[in-house]
């Protein structure tokens, strides 16, 4: 009998884990400014945890969210307050803070039972704004918009003191989250969520409880965003409302779209692509452009992101992961590829 996960090719996991472990050592050997690259990778890792959650919600279930920066903020602030002000150990906060964020996810999920598409996008965007106002209003704990210094992560007596340590902490969670999300999506829950995305009526007709599954999608997505928030707060060591603006929520959606929706791997690839582009490629491009053009090139980032979105949606609606799949099929069939005419 064929098992549930037999379709899933898991051979790549071991080499990937080895690559993740070896990468910082390679970086350290290759460049003296490896800590800067590690920091960028850490940001990418934290965002990956969030975008995987966003992919579950927006990609698999079809519920658009423009409020994920809000969930990230809730996770970050909850953990900062719990650990630094209430004395909760970091290890416990890693469990509790995401769960609290998950409850907010359910709260936001309720309107989603009745609205969808653009209207849901606007509602969740409103949620993002509310969270920022809430953080400012609760200044007794959050210090308002002045921002909050956060302690370093401490697990089993070990302090994660720098980007090197943080890298391993963050990527441990990235691997766990990606494997977990793939599994969930291959299970009954995943199929139910996809059925809801494709046709709510049909899903209901085959006995899928819409309320329960939609709320569950919001809950799970918010839990992952909350987890990303906890890691964000303690590894970046300073959080302020300036971090969590609407633009960040939009970037998260771009990451998922560019990577390829409803694949999980797409979210990972998209996040890595956008973060590396944002932190490494665009500054280089700016310098290069400024070297021979006397124009102000500061605003070029939004322009580049806009173009990338535009080009991907037109030419590669399946995203980066879709490109990879196509490439794989091409090489598998080589040299007997059927000529596919684009219509």
């Amino acid at each position, binding site marked *: 009998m064929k098992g549930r996960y037999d379709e899933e090719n898991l051979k790549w996991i071991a080499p990937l884990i080895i690559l993740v472990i070896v990468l910082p050592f390679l970086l350290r050997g290759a460049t*003296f*400014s490896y*800590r*800067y690259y590690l*920091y*960028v990778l850490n*940001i990418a890792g934290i965002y990956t945890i969030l975008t995987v959650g966003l992919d579950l919600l927006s990609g698999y279930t079809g519920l658009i969210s423009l409020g994920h920066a809000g969930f990230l903020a809730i996770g970050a602030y909850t953990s900062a307050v719990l650990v630094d002000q209430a004395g909760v150990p970091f290890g416990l906060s890693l469990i509790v803070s995401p769960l609290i964020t998950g409850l907010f996810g359910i709260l936001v999920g309720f309107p989603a039972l009745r609205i969808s598409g653009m209207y849901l996008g606007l509602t969740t965007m409103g949620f993002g704004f509310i969270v920022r106002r809430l953080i*400012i209003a609760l*200044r007794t704990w959050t*210090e*308002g*918009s*002045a*921002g909050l*210094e956060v302690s370093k992560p401490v697990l089993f007596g070990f302090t994660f003191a*720098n980007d090197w340590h943080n890298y391993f902490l963050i990527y441990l969670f990235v691997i766990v989250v990606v494997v977990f999300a793939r599994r969930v999506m291959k299970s009954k829950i995943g199929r139910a969520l996809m059925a809801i995305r494709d046709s709510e009526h049909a899903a209901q007709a085959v006995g899928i409880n819409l309320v329960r599954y939609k709320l569950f999608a919001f809950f799970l997505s918010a839990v992952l965003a909350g987890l990303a928030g906890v890691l964000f707060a303690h590894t*970046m*060591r*300073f959080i*302020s*409302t*300036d*971090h969590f603006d609407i633009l960040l929520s939009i970037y998260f959606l771009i990451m998922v779209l560019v990577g390829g929706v409803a694949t999980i791997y797409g979210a990972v690839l998209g996040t890595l692509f956008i973060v590396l582009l944002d*932190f490494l490629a665009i*500054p280089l491009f700016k310098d290069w452009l400024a070297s021979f053009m006397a124009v*102000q090139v*500061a*605003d*070029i*980032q*939004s322009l580049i992101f806009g173009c990338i979105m535009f080009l991907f949606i037109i030419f590669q609606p399946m995203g980066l992961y879709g490109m990879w799949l196509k490439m794989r099929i091409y090489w598998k069939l080589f040299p007997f590829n059927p000529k596919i005419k684009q219509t």
Partner: protein
Amino acid sequence: MKLRKPVTLILLITFFLACAGREPTPGVTDTEILIGNIQDLSGPMKELGMALPHGSNLYFNYINDKGGVHGRQIRMTMEDHQYNPQKAVAAAKKLIEQDQVFCLYQIIGTSPCEAIRPMLEENGIPLVAPATQSGTMSDRSKTGWKYIFHTDTGYDKQANILVDYAYELNASAKVGVIYQDDDYGENVLEGIAEAEARHGVTIQKEAFQRGATDFAGQVMNLNKGGATHVIIGGIVREPIIVMKTAAAMGYAPQFLGISPTMDHRVALGSGEAGEGFIAANFAQLYNSDTEGAELYRELFEKSGTDPKVMGMYNFYGFITAMVLVEGLERAGKRLTRDGLIKALEGVKGYDGKGVFRGITYGPNDRAGTEAVVLVENRGGTQRIISDWIE
């Protein structure tokens, strides 16, 4: 023969010590000092992001033309943080590790500066003259305080002085404050709270969001609350619209402003409504007759820059550059990061060619200047109406 071993040992130790001592300071060569600056070049404050470093470069170029500091030319490299603290951290990491800058200088915005505190401590790298007047910059209870040399009078201190001034003008004044509800406003509120406690009064507070363009609700509330003196904690656009809105409503309190509202464009843009507006500033004006301001105007004209750039923020870049150069001069020929920190700690009452009241640092003091002058708008121009107030 017996002597040989100890002599070899001593020679070896000396050799190692010499090697250790010769480890070069990052960003410093025989001919150059590289400093790192992080500005907002494409975010909400991008207007200032261009004006500030231009002013600093005017002074650095002037010093470079005179032969530099102890024979070294000053070169400033820039990054963009878009007023995002996380981008500020990434930019600081890049400057410190990839570009190997000697020190950080003039990073704009409170939250970006707050975010890089742990890095300053880890790398032992000084940040001179952060471009924010938040009093938290010189707060000794915060991480990395030792490495931040704040030049300006804090927003909290300024708010405090303005409340006192309102009561000086009119003992039965009713003071209100309209503030931007971000880190800047947060620091203004701290000063207001202190003044409230000192005077035993409650001050009416109205908040607006950064980037807001409509203040009708807040102004109406202040009018309803009967505020006779209103302190504005905005930047350039906000005081103009607030005063115009009040004028349109027939509400005419005495408006007072925190230093970012001191820009000459407020005087130009607010017209009739801004007549008599008084703002605090931690330095003399760019068009004053102090030696520093005269040098600034002379260098600016020589540079052939668009005259529109000339103004308070450009001048701000210029005068903070003077403070950094003063520190570098004092640090001497053998320049190290610790040496710069020690040298700056020795700065007492430095007035930047008459521009400041006197910048003073010490082993436990990072506050810079703590005085302001008051600047009044009359007929679209600004003039100083007070002595230094502390």
